[in-house]
């Protein structure tokens, strides 16, 4: 029994090692092929720079790019926070009033499917404060998963538990606090993880639109600028920073989600416990 268990644990550990090692190996191999192709074919750096040159640019232009990243990140995080707060508030209203949900939900869908590139110029025109304008754009892209998921979560409470709450004379507030909110938490967190990536995309898209007017110095503006000047290595360096930012946002939200759900939700239970 003990032997079998330790073998099981060992296998899990090696699985976890592979989970990191295997994609890392693929990545290194791809970069090597990329570098080799660029050198052998003699591709000019203003068309396709090699990974080593990009790394070098990242080092030399890093400080100024990081400054721009902070601008983009501020918009992203503010939009994500607004998506979390306003999104769950809207979902809460929907769960309290069926009429409200029926009459307003279609409009959240419309807002979601409207291409942000098309309406961003209008928003930038209407909202004079640049930071706020970008925030609104990023929020429109990011809020929907939170609303949709949390609404489903708030309506997913166990029917028998609802009956039990009724039997014990629970008020609407107590039913919400002790039953509906905990039920909705995993749904909300799943929505938030999607919103995290969308907030970054929304911030970048909004900066692109605003950047053509030359109003901001976020990372998206730097990418545009690098494109105009054929500073392709810097463009790649900025892209790299954006990807890393997106991954970090996802990992942080995933970690928070596991932390909050670790005691009870299937999605957050460590493998070796099962």
């Amino acid at each position: 029994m003990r032997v079998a268990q330790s073998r099981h644990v060992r296998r899990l550990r090696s699985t976890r090692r592979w989970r990191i090692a295997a994609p890392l190996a693929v990545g290194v191999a791809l970069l090597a092929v990329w570098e080799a192709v660029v050198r052998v074919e003699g591709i000019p750096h203003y068309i396709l720079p090699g990974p080593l040159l990009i790394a070098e640019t990242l080092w030399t232009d890093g400080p100024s790019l990081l400054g721009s990243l902070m601008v983009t990140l501020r918009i992203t995080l503010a939009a994500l926070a607004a998506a979390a707060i306003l999104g769950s508030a809207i979902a809460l209203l929907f769960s309290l009033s069926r009429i409200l949900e029926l009459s307003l939900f279609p409009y959240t869908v419309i807002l979601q499917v409207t291409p942000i590139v098309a309406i961003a110029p209008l928003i930038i025109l209407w909202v004079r404060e640049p930071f706020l304008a970008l925030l609104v754009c990023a929020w429109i892209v990011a809020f929907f998963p939170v609303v949709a998921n949390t609404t489903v979560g708030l309506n997913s409470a166990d029917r028998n538990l609802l009956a039990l709450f009724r039997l014990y004379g629970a008020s609407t507030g107590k039913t919400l606090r002790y039953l509906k909110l905990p039920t909705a938490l995993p749904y909300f967190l799943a929505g938030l993880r999607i919103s995290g990536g969308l907030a970054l995309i929304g911030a970048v898209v909004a900066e692109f639109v605003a950047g053509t007017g030359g109003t901001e110095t976020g990372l998206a503006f730097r990418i545009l600028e690098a494109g105009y000047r054929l500073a392709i290595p810097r463009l790649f360096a900025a892209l790299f920073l954006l990807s890393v930012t997106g991954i970090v946002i996802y990992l942080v939200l995933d970690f928070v989600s596991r932390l909050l759900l670790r005691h009870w939700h299937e999605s957050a239970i460590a493998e070796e416990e099962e």
Partner: protein
Amino acid sequence: MPSPLSESRDTDSIVRLRGIGKRFGSGMTALDAIDLDIGRGEFLSLLGPSGCGKTTLLRIIAGLSEPSAGVRRLSLATDAGGHIPSGRIGFVFQDPTLMPWSTVVDNVLLPFRLAGRVGPAERERAKAEIDSVGLAGFERAYPRQLSGGMRMRVSIARALVTDPVLLLLDEPFAALDEITRMALNDDLMWLWDRRRPTVVFVTHSVFESVYLSTRIAVMTRRPGRIVADVPVGLPQRRDRALRTSPGYAAICATISNHLAKAMAAEINAPVLK
């Protein structure tokens, strides 16, 4: 915390149903003309095949479902507003129906929490109730860490923690294995014997109903009716030896006959009559 009701010598029935009918939106008649009186301290089993409306009847007694016809009256002390105070009725579902995000003790404390009073006295009650269902030491465990039988014990502790006058159980042991089920039958007997709440127990097991009850109402389906109402004249204290005694076997046979007759009438097979 002795309840004034359980101490009173009032022999009136605690549940009184007259002409209860239930028709669902689909036009299906689940219950038809149910008359039933349940006396204080009785352990009544509602026994019948699946689909006979046992669960519907139990939910009507609990007030979780409104009958389409008839009158339901519960003789439980009401508060100034004419409402039954929370915690007078305990309910155990077929599934343990626990909150997965809460520990055992928080699940058992739920009735108090919903009534807005969780103090040291309530915590002590919860602790005592967890002990009495045999889960001492598991207070801080989460439901997913427990076996099916243990989860059902938590569910029973939650139903008993308010010291209810009326305890309603809806096939609580149907999903458990035979061994766990027998152990829980004995524990339920012991728990009932402590304070003698009135119990309505829904089951489709003849043996279980005879082992536990002081009285059995046999139901039939389409529409759901009570076709036989049989007192169980077995000794009050029951143990495993009873399961092999002739008296137990005789009552099981009587109940099985009622059930077979009801089923035969239902499928309209005169040969069996």
